[in-house]
Every structure is written in structure tokens, then in C-alpha cells.
């Protein structure tokens, strides 16, 4: 804990130093957002370490992340199918907010090892993690939305994903920064976002029921970990 506090203090110090030193707000925003982002990701992994998540759950999270990453890699040649959004959302829904966040985060990082790591990696990790988190909150208490509702949510998430990516892109690289330019960045990415959304919607409509059932079954197998040392009579 002491270490975490020291780290946080150091980060805050560096952050404020940057703000002081940097004159343009755009660069200040870029830097501070990077620091905050790194902090959020680091803290979530620290939380993971401190949580009660055991070997079995780790294996499940890793498996789903690998599955998601592989789907992303194998579908990369098909331009409008971006399965990560749908799969992360589904994992969040079936497994809960934190596992959902982890699946989104790690699959983004890992698939980028194959597709190209870059300044966008932390942002993708964050955005997809967020999608998993939201869906996890949505699916709390075992709620299961209808395929259309889930599909529409995936459409929303696709746009959310695109917008988070754009925001940083625009602020970090647009000179001079104008609201028009900001808007235009969104407009140009609209086509990609639309394709992303359409693909996610189709995936949701076509895959949702089947995949939810599979995940739900394993989730149950995962949860039941009671150890009973005496067998009830009727069990025999």
C-alpha cells in the first residue's frame, strides 16, 4: 500500500510539473490524459493482483482474451468485422464488470502485438475495457437483455469506442485545434464507426444467443466451488 501511495504521489507531482511547464493546453491535455490513462490501467491490474480471483478464473479470463484476440486477428482481413467489441461486451455481460474489463484490456494489448503496437494501444485497452465494464454492470443480477437490445448496445459501444479514439487523436495532432476540425475528425471516422457498428450489430444478432448460453454455462461451473465434506444422503 505504501508503494501505491508513493507511486500515486510521484505521478501527481510529475503531472502537475508537466502542466506547469507546458504552455499549450493541447499538449498539456495530451500529457495529462496519458498519465491518467496509465494510472487507471496500472491501478486496475494492481486491483487484479489484490482481488480474490483465483487460478481457475485467471484461466477463464486468459482463455476468453485469447479467443477474442484470435478472432480479431483472423478477421482482420475482412474490413467490417471487428469482433472485439461484441465479444468483450458479451464477456462483461456474462462474467461481470471486472472480468469484462480485463478481457477487453488484455485482448486489445495482445492482439496489437500481432497487428501493431502503438500510441493507440493504451486507448484501445481503455476503451474496450470500458465496454466490458459497462456490460458487466448492465448484466449484474443475471439480467439477460434481448438480442436486439444487446445489438443496439453494441452499436452504441462501437461509436463510443471510435469517439474515444478520435478525441485523443484530434487533440494530440490537430494544429490548430478548431471545433470544426474536431467535428470533421468525427465525421471522417463516421464511415469506419458505422461499419464497425454494423458488424457488431450483425455479430450480436447472429451470435448472441448461442455464445451467451455457452459462456453462462461455464460461468456457472466456475462459480460453484463449494467443498462439502459430507455427502448428503439423497446424493448417494
Amino acid at each position: 500500500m505504501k508503494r501505491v501511495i508513493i507511486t500515486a504521489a510521484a505521478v501527481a507531482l510529475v503531472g502537475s510539473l508537466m502542466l506547469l511547464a507546458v504552455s499549450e493546453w493541447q499538449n498539456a491535455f495530451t500529457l495529462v490524459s496519458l498519465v491518467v490513462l496509465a494510472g487507471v490501467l496500472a491501478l486496475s491490474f494492481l486491483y487484479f493482483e489484490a482481488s480474490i480471483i483465483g487460478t481457475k478464473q485467471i484461466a477463464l479470463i486468459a482463455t476468453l482474451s485469447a479467443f477474442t484476440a484470435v478472432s480479431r486477428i483472423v478477421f482482420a482481413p475482412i474490413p467490417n468485422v471487428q469482433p472485439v467489441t461484441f465479444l468483450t461486451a458479451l464477456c462483461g455481460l456474462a462474467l461481470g464488470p471486472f472480468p469484462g474489463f480485463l478481457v477487453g484490456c488484455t485482448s486489445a494489448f495482445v492482439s496489437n502485438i500481432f497487428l501493431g503496437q502503438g500510441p493507440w494501444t493504451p486507448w484501445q485497452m481503455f476503451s474496450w475495457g470500458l465496454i466490458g465494464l459497462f456490460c458487466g454492470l448492465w448484466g449484474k443480477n443475471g439480467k439477460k437483455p434481448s438480442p436486439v437490445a444487446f445489438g443496439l448496445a453494441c452499436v452504441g459501444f462501437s461509436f463510443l469506442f471510435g469517439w474515444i479514439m478520435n478525441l485523443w487523436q484530434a487533440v494530440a495532432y490537430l494544429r490548430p485545434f478548431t471545433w470544426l476540425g474536431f467535428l470533421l475528425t468525427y465525421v471522417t471516422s463516421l464511415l469506419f464507426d458505422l461499419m464497425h457498428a454494423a458488424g457488431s450489430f450483425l455479430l450480436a444478432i447472429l451470435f448472441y444467443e448461442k455464445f451467451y448460453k455457452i459462456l453462462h454455462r461455464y460461468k456457472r461451473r466456475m462459480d460453484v466451488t463449494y467443498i462439502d465434506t459430507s455427502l448428503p444422503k439423497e446424493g448417494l
Partner: protein
Amino acid sequence: MKIQLHILTPVFLLVSSLFLLFSTDHPFVICGSILLAVTVLAGGKKWKQLKQGLWFALPMTFFMLLFNLVFVSSGVTELAVVFGKRITLESILYAFLMGVKLLAATYLFFMAGSLTNGDKAVSYCGSKLPKSTLTFLLIFRLIPHFRESFFHLKDVYATRGVEFENVPLREKIKSYRAVLAVLLEQSLESSFEIGEAAYTRGFLSTKRSVYERSRPTWRDGLVLTADALLLAVYILLLVNGSASFNLYFGEGLERLSNPAWILFLLLCATLAGCILIANRKQRETTEVTWDT
């Protein structure tokens, strides 16, 4: 290239150089960053990554160029007036500059990646962050396996009459449903087995020890010293105001000739050189080779 550096060194390098790059638009800083990253990547013969970076940066540069040409009229040096719209030298230069900045950021990530030794990272993080490390280890283990299964299943479903090519998008996605469902099911099934394998081998049973602890060497010292020098000079320039730059207002132009910038660029080159030297293969290897 066998990586000789301690795992934290590239992390520190990445953080410090991203700080440099994103704290200003100053052309010398951007040039310095790109000089550093390209030298290290080229020294490691990472031609593929150098090319890949270009492909990532080009579309964005093109977009910014187009945007600036059409919408931006700021700037002093007027090149032409088209349909009553000023096209300025500054706006074009900026588009290029920002493109190079994006390229530099990409290359810096590549550089840090090329200096990270996966095995050492695992050893280091394994004792500090065992759960996260196991997660990533399992993912790396499973990906090639799943990929192979994916293509195998695609083959099996092709023999069951499922068509994957030359069909509309909706049908295409539908075709993959069975393949992905089977893959998901088999993957989840194997998640129990691989989890059990880790469990049986005592994972999370106690505080982990470290098999091949990597210790910082003179190599890390060299790189970090060069990096610290560079950072110090840059912070001086920053405090002094020389690092602020805005072409549209002509800001920073008069300090472009500040001789400190030459020192800055020299230090960038030195850092790149130090990294290459530090990462050179050792002649007498102190590592035990298992091969007989």
C-alpha cells in the same frame, strides 16, 4: 538481437521520450525523437517495423494535410488563394510536422518493444504481479493454438458444406457462427485443464520466488545516464521557454537557432548510440549455455 537490458530500462525510456514528444510541437524535439527511434530500430535491423510505422502514419498525415488545405487559413506566409481561400505554408508544414509526430510516437513504441526481453519481463513481473503475468502467459500460449484450431475448424465446416467465400456479409458472418461457437466451447473446456495444470504446480500457493532474476548492469547505467542527460537538457529548455513553439503565431521561431538545440539533438544521437552499444551481444557470454 539478443536483448541485454533490464526490463525497466525500456519502460523508463518510453515514458521519458513520450514525455518529450507530447509536451511540445517543437520540430527539433520531434526530429530528435524520430532520430532516436529510427536509429535504434535500424540498428536492430527492424526494417519491417519501420515500414509498418509509415503505413500507420500516412493516412492520418494525409487527412491532416487535406484538412489544413481546405479549412485552415491561419498563418502568415500565403502561398496561394484558391476560391477565395488562403493556403498558407504554415498549415502545410503543420500537417507534415504532426504526421511526423505520430510516426515518432509509433516508432518509440516499436523501439521500447524491440528492447524488451519477454523472458526477463516474465521473470520480473512474475514475482511482482503473478496474476497478471499468468494471464498474459496463458494468452500467449493459447493464441497460436486457437489460431490453428480456428483454421482447422474452418476446414471441417467447409467439408460440411458451409461456404465462407463469395457470400454476402450477413451470410459470411453466419458461416463463422458454428466455427466460432465450437472454438469457444473447446477453448473454455481447455481453460479448466490449463488452469488445473497451473494449480497442480502450486500457482498462488505462496509468495513466488524468481528463477532468473535480472539485475541492472552497466548497460542499463549507460542508457539511463544518457537518457537522464537528455531529459535534463530538455527540461532546462522547457523552463527557459525555448521549447514552446507555435508556427501560426511565429512563436519559438526566434529561438530555433538556440545552440542548446544542437546539444539536444547530439544528446538524442548519443542516447541512440548508447542503446545500441548497450544492447550489443556480449563476447564472452556469462550466461550458462545448456546446449551440449
